[in-house]
């Protein structure tokens, strides 16, 4: 059994701070890494010490594997936690960490690489008898697709995906015969450009699908537990922005089925550490299909923690120390409803990123609220990294209760000045009748964007007063103006 004595967090922003919090609970000293523009970032000061690892571009810093491992070795760390994003699902990095004699807080490198390949992971799912979206892997030509559709009795639309793809790249939805050959060629060429691998697969496209995922923890001794599901259907540009647990779309029977299905596949692939199995749920037909396995801590893990009372990062650290799980499935009883919104620094009307200095920050508190943030008043939001400023989670006895609390948080006393944020959009969404009734799909935001924008809340007096103060400042400095 290996004890983590000191740990390097190979990340920045919200994930780095999140992991450091639990490490602090366990009194494990933490080392932060930072790029040049992050020198004064929040995560640097939450850690015990910090190492500069390079310039702004991620490839020179947060994706620079050698520098990160050297930093860990130099600071006498014996473990690395990758957070989420950057190197969290990089099998090569996981292997390098282990080869350097460090503890890798995550699943085994071979599992990461297996699950990183869409075709391979789908094969695993089929072996574990997990329903997968009807599709075919061996696609060399348009005729292959047509033959498959005829044989399996599949109608348009279908989805062509790069086998090595991810993050919304190398994907195309094909709605008719006419588009097929153009889009097939396009995905292949994008796949080649982006992933240097033009293997593609094709699947049936699930209309109005909902995105449901199951949180798994597993130890090295074959114990695989699920921590129930999360619903992450609300996305914009294939990026989640609102998540909740439990899912409002499942019955108890389906919930049991989807959770045990997830356990089955994770056991099949020999998973350990924390991970997530993602499904697409066809709510009209009450059927779910395996999508992929995320071999890391997820952004939205916090809502699972809120409903179960468990600390998933704490469990990851235990599991990395080769401890067995000391819980049984029957010990896990979710008893809350939790909601999470991602407060990104983006223009809420068009998602164009916004960066600059946070000139004012007021973080809402009150009953039922959990905030994970990585910003402070006066800090800079550099343009090089992702736009997540803050995760805001609320929990309540039921869904309405959690939404009410979220409404309170978003509409009172949350102030971020200096950059644009998604706040108005998030508030419009949680106030929308379809969201409240649980009736939405992954296309909800694009379908309702104009309506949502139209209901953006008017300015508050706290916004208005700053305009007045600006005039006072200006005239105090310059005196009466010519135009007066």
């Amino acid at each position, binding site marked *: 059994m290996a004890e983590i004595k000191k740990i390097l967090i190979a990340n920045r922003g919200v994930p780095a701070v999140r992991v450091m919090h639990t490490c602090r609970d366990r009194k494990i000293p933490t080392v932060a890494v930072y790029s040049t523009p992050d020198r004064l970032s929040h995560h640097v000061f939450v850690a015990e010490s910090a190492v500069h690892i390079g310039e702004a*571009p*991620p490839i020179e810093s947060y994706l620079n594997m050698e520098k990160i491992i050297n930093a860990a070795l130099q600071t006498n760390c014996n473990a690395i936690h990758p957070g989420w994003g950057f190197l969290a699902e990089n099998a090569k990095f996981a292997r390098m960490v282990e080869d350097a004699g460090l503890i890798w807080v995550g699943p085994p490198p071979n599992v990461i690489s297996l699950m990183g390949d869409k075709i391979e992971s789908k094969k695993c799912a089929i072996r574990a008898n997990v329903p997968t979206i009807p599709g075919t892997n061996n696609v060399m030509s348009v005729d292959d697709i047509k033959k498959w559709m005829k044989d399996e009795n599949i109608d348009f639309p279908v989805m062509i995906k790069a086998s090595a793809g991810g993050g919304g790249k190398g994907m195309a939805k094909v709605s008719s015969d006419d588009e097929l050959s153009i889009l097939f060629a396009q995905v292949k060429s994008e796949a080649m450009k982006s992933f240097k691998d033009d293997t593609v697969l094709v699947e049936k496209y699930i209309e109005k699908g909902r995105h449901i995922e199951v949180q798994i923890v597993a130890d090295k001794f074959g114990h695989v537990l699920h921590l129930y599901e999360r619903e992450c259907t609300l996305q914009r540009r294939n990026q989640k922005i609102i998540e909740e647990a439990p899912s409002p779309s499942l019955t108890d029977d389906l919930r049991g089925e989807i959770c045990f299905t997830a356990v089955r596949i994770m056991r099949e692939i020999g998973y350990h550490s924390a991970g997530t199995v993602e499904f697409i749920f066809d709510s009209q037909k009450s059927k779910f299909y395996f999508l992929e396995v995320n071999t890391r801590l997820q952004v939205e893990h916090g809502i699972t923690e809120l409903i179960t009372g468990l600390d998933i990062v704490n469990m990851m650290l235990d599991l990395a120390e080769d401890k067995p799980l000391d819980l049984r499935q029957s010990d896990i009883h979710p008893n809350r409803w939790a909601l999470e919104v991602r407060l990104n620094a*983006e223009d809420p009307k068009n998602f*164009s*990123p*916004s*960066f600059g200095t946070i*000139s*004012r920050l007021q973080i809402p508190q009150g009953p039922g609220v959990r905030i994970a943030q990585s910003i402070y008043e006066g800090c800079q939001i550099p*343009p*090089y*990294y*992702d*736009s997540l400023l803050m995760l805001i989670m609320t929990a309540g006895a039921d869904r309405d209760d959690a939404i009410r609390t979220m409404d309170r948080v978003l509409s009172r006393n949350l102030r971020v000045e200096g950059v644009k944020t998604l706040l108005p959009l998030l508030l419009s969404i949680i106030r929308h009748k379809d969201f409240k009734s649980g009736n939405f799909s992954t296309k909800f935001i694009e379908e309702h964007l104009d309506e949502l924008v139209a209901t953006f809340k008017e*300015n508050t*007096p706290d*916004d*208005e*007063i*700053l*305009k*007045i*103060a*600006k*005039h*006072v*400042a*200006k*005239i*105090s*400095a*310059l*005196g*009466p103006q010519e*135009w*007066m």
Partner: protein
Amino acid sequence: MEKIFKPGLSPKEIVQRVRTLDGVAITLTGMRDAGQSDFKNRHRIYDLKTLSPFYEDMNLFSSECHGGARWHVGIMNRKEDPFEEIRLLRELMPSVMLQTLIRETNLWGYRPYPKNVIEYVVSAVDIDVWRCFSFLNDIRNMKTVAEVVMKRGRLFQPAISFTQSHWTTNEYYLGVVDDIVDLCAGVNEIVLCIKDMAGVGSPERIRSLVDAIKQKYPELMIQYHRHATDGLALPALLSAAKAGAKILDAEEDSLTRFYGQAPILSLQAYLEESGIKALLNREITEKATEKVREWIGHYEWCESPFKGFDHNVTKHKMPGGAFPSSFEQAEKGGFLHLMPAILRVMSLYNQIVKYFDVTPGSQITWVTCSGIINKYSKAKGEAGVNHVIKLLDKLVEKNNCDFHKMENDEQEELLTLFRNAPGDFKNLILGNYGKLPMGWPDEWVYKSTFGEEWPDKLKERKELSPLDTIKPDDLNKHKEEFEEKTGRKPTEEEFILYLMHPKDAVEFVNFRDEFGETPLVLPTNVWREGLKMPGDKVEFDLWGKPYCIELVSVGSEHEGHIYVVVKVNNSAKVYTIATPRAKKAEIKMAKGANQIGSPINGTIWRIGNPARGSIKAGDIVQKGEEIANIEAMKMENAIVAPFDAVISDVIIKVNDPVQEKQLLFELKPL
């Protein structure tokens, strides 16, 4: 106590109540013309609204609080919206009739509007009493305003522009009143206003005019609006009342200077002593007068530099409302010393081209006459000024405006006198505003204005009202233009501001977007001068909550910027204020097909593409070829050439942060 005059009454009821009123009622101009005539319209609604609770109980006929130049100065100088003002006053004095002053086809702007604009604008403004005048007394021009106002059930108050001169006889005015009665289908739904905008009507002249109108139209109710410039306002108002005028205009005594209306308390006392009752709560009026003294000191800076009554106004006819602004322009233009000469020229000019000196006529007179004097002054100094006055004096006074009685060389000089006259003067004599009250000016004026082109120009001259000749405006097109200039959808009210004053409305909307409700909540001294010393603070309520802004420090100027620290409800806030010396880091935006703009905010991390390397000006690129890549929040965004082209300019460098739509490349299509 039941109010006799209040919003919601039909025009018929109002007229009936005026007829049966024992004595006279008063329109208080404290919220508009008083400020326009002596304080350049700078009185802020922040201060004026403190009078509303008093107005509510004063028993006024109406409060003139809107229109004239207050609208334009509001958006331009005070950054106040006339619609916002009406809403505020309605709330604070719900039982007072609100009155506007509107310039027939010019509305509250400075160009004749087509019928569709007039209908659109007049329908949108919540005013009870609509005083409408024509600087030409061309009643045809009032038609559309009258129709819309009367259809809405609001009181239409047609005004005759009054001046005292040999050509403005009772007979002339009765003709104008005939036109008005025709237009308004009788006398039962209107109140006629005699608009003595310069304050020139002698008591006897006014008595005679009111009497003549009353004899012809005994049932027509008359209101006398008069400025005080000649020093004879009170006796003239009394004689109007004695002759049968039922409503008089006045302002708070503490607001009176020289060019506005008569003092209300003095007027009331004077009327009562003469046996005419004034419908007015004296006690509350005294309180309003006192209230004014609390804030009027903040407006000393905008009082006219020309002080004192001026009986010579009977000659030069400059209207009270134009006094402060004309002197201000003269001061700014550095020709204040020429004012006596300009006023003298005005008194001669108005006998050559006959109309009434009130907007837009007063501006035409002002620009034309100050232009003539300035030209002569620049060319020949004082001698030149004296020379042109002598020339005009000879033409007008000695030769009774007969051009042919002048010597040859004098004629030649007169034939260039108007060559530099403003465009609006040309429009005026070409009939673009309507018919001139005494007919077109003499032929030599056209020769003087247009030179050799004069016969052609004369053929263009219109006899019809602009209402009949101006083509409808495309409102959607105007709206799109406005939207383009401000970058957002305007409200209906903002759009109306734009229709009146396009340039100033854009600046107004931008100001309010940037500074919000500042003009409504800041006390006047802070609004205009800011906070002076560290520790000075200003406290006020905003949307139901208390706020405090305190000055912490004003830094010294560095490279055109001053850092100002203020505390907003005890939290420090730093503002970087650009001084006029600040260098503008200009960011060009892409326009048109040949300029390539950034699709997003981000950082240029590559110019060119991996296949060919960097790209520079002069390189040829193919349609679809990547020419740069922008990174934002980890996502790469390729910029591709939209067509085969030569790169004519590369505006950005690698690692430049760029804004959405910022110009990146200029291309020349192949």
